[in-house]
C-alpha cells in the first residue's frame, strides 16, 4: 500500500479527478492548502502600494492505493495537472503501514 499526496493547482482539480477515477480508485481526500515552492509568491498592487502574496492557494489530493496502481495514478495525475508553467505542483509517494475501515474493522488492503 502506498499513500500518494499530490499538490496541484486549484483550477486543475476537475481534470485530475476525472482522470484518476477512471483508473478505478475507490476514494480520495481533497484539502485546500496554502504554500510555496519554486514559484514563490507574487507581487500585486493595491491603492498604489505593492504587496506580496507569499503563500499561494493549492489543492492537496490524498489517495491510498495498492502498490500496482501507483505508477498509473502518478502518470495520470502528472498528465492531467500539467500546464507546463511554474507552479504545477508536486506528487509525493510514501509507504503506508496500515489502513483500518472504521465501520467494519477491516484492515490492510481490504480496507482501501
Amino acid at each position, binding site marked *: 500500500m502506498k499513500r500518494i499526496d499530490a499538490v496541484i493547482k486549484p483550477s486543475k482539480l476537475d481534470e485530475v479527478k476525472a482522470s484518476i477515477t477512471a483508473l478505478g480508485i475507490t476514494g480520495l481526500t481533497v484539502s485546500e492548502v496554502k504554500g510555496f515552492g519554486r514559484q514563490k509568491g507574487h507581487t500585486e*498592487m493595491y491603492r*498604489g502600494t505593492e*504587496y506580496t502574496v507569499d503563500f499561494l492557494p493549492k489543492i492537496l489530493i490524498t489517495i491510498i492505493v495498492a502498490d500496482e496502481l501507483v505508477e498509473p495514478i502518478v502518470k495520470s495525475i502528472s498528465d492531467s495537472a500539467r500546464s507546463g508553467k511554474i507552479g504545477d505542483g508536486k506528487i509525493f509517494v510514501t509507504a503506508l503501514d496500515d489502513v483500518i475501515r472504521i465501520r467494519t474493522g477491516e484492515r490492510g488492503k481490504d480496507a482501501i
Partner: protein
Amino acid sequence: MVHVSARRPRQWLLKAVVAMLFAQWLAGPVIIARADEPQPDPAGIATGDKTSTSDAGGNAFVITAPTDKTAPDYATTKKAFDDFTAQAAKEPLAMKLADNVGHLRIAANFSWTLLTGYLVLFMQAGFALLTCGLVRKKNAGHLMMLNFAAYVFAFLAYYVCGFAFQYGGCAINAAPTQLGGTPTLDHFAIGSGLWGILGGKGFFLSGPGYDAGSLCLTLFEVVFMETAGYIIVGAICERITFGAFLLCELFVGGILYPMFGCWVWGGGWLSQLGNTMGLGHGYVDFAGSTVVHGIGGFCAMALAVILGPRIGKYGPDGKPRAFPAHNLVYVVTGTFILLFGWMGFNPGSTLAASDLRISVIAVNTNLAAVAGAASAMFLWYYLFGKPDVTMACNGMLAGLVAITAPCAFVSPNSAVIIGLLAGILVDLGVLFNERVIKVDDPCGAISVHGYCGWLGAVCVGIFADGTYGAGWNGVGATTYLGKAGLGVTGLLHGDSKQFITQIGGATLMAIYAFGFTYVVFSLVNAVVPMRVSKEVEMEGLDVPEFGLPAYPEDELVDAGSPVAA
C-alpha cells in the same frame, strides 16, 4: 471591589438620563413662543397660503406694501401694491384659490424634500458597505457596528442641540420659503443680524422647533449631518475604540457640523459676506461639498493624525504597506448605493419640487460622478499599469463630492470638467496622504471628502455661469453686476469676488474642521486613549470589542492567512 467599580458608570449613566429628562421637561414649557412671536404650526394647517404662491420667475403673487419711502422705485412698487389691493378686494374667490395653491405648493415641496431625504438616508447603507468592503476581514464586524452607531448617536446629538445650533436663526437671513419659511426659528444664540455664529432656537425640537415646516427641514438636514458622521468612519476604522468613536459622533452631530452649517446654510456670517463685505453672493455651497463632506473629511483627518497609522501600515523603512480590501463586491455595491442616494442629496437641496432646476442638478451630479470615475481610473492605469477598482470607486465619489457645491450653478460641460478634476485630485490625494504626510486613511475618506470637498466649493467660484441663484443669500435679487436676473457667477463668467470668497470660505472650513477636532480630541486622547491595545488590533477588533466576528465560520481558515494577519 471589581463589582463596585463596575456599577459606578451605570449609576452615573442613570443620573445623566434623569437629568436629561428633567431638562427636557423644563425646556418644553419655557421655550414655547411668546404671544408676540411667530407661533409654531405643529399640525401643518397654517403652513403655506397665498403668500407662498409665485410665478415661475419667483415673483410673488401677493405684493407687499413698500416700507422704504426713499427707495428709487418707491413710486412703482407702491402703485403695484395699490393695484393688487384693489384687485384683491374685487375678487375674494381668487384670494381663496391662491391660499389653496400656496398650500399645495408647500405640500409638493414637503413631499420632495422628505422623499429626497429618505434617499439620503439610504446612503448610510452605501457607506456601510463601502467602508466594510475596504477593510480587512478581521475588522468587518467592528466596521458595521461603527456605521450603525454613527447614525444612532449623531442623530440624538442633532436632536438635542445640533439642529438648534444650525438652524435656530435661519428665519433671520435664510428662511426656507420653499417650506413655508419656518418663521419660528428666529434667534441666534451667538452673533446677531448678518453676523450670526450659532443658532439658538429649537432645542430638543420642541417649542419653536415643534413645527411642520421646521421638522421637514430637520428630517432633510439630519441625514446630511449623518453623512458627515459616516465619513469619519473611513479614516479612523480598524483601530479606534468604540467608546471614543461614540464621543466623536456626539461631537460631529452636536457642535462641529451644526456650527459651520449655521455659518453657510443657517443664515450665518459666511453666507452674508455678500451683504456685509460686498463679496459676491457670500459664501455659496449648494448641497454641502464643504458643509457636509469637507467637514467630515477634515475632521477625519485630524482624528487619523491623533490615532496614528494602523500597526504594520508602515514598515521599519517607513515605506507604506498594502492592506487589501476584503470584499470588492461590497465596495462597488456601496458606491452605487451612494450614487443613488446622491440623487436625493443634490436635487433635494432645492427643498422644492417647484424649482425646476432639479433636472439640471440631477444630470450634473451624474455627469461629474462618471467623469470622476473615468479620470481616477485612467490616471491610475497610467501611473501603475492596472486600473484599481477601489480607486475607480473613490473617483466616482470624488466627482460626486466636488459637484455637490456647484451642481445647481454650472452647465453640464462644467460638471464634466469638475468631475475630471476631482478624479485626478483624489488619486493624488490618496498618494499624498499615504506616501508624503503618512496619514493612514484605510478608505480614502480624507482625499475623497476633504480635498475634493474643498475643490467643489472653489469650483463654484470658477464655473458658476449666472443662470441660477438670483438673489442667493439676499444678494442681487433684481440685478447683479448690472444684469437683471443674474445668479451666482464664477471667475470664468466675470465675478472674481465670488472666486475669492469661495477659496477663503473653503479654506476656512478645512482649518476649522481640522483645528477644532484636533484640539478637542488631543485632550480626550490625553485623558483616555482612543486607540485599542496592540493585541486587540493584531487580533482584529470584532471579537475583543463586540464578542462576535463578522464571519465566524472562517475564523479557523483565516487565522493563519497573511492578508488577515
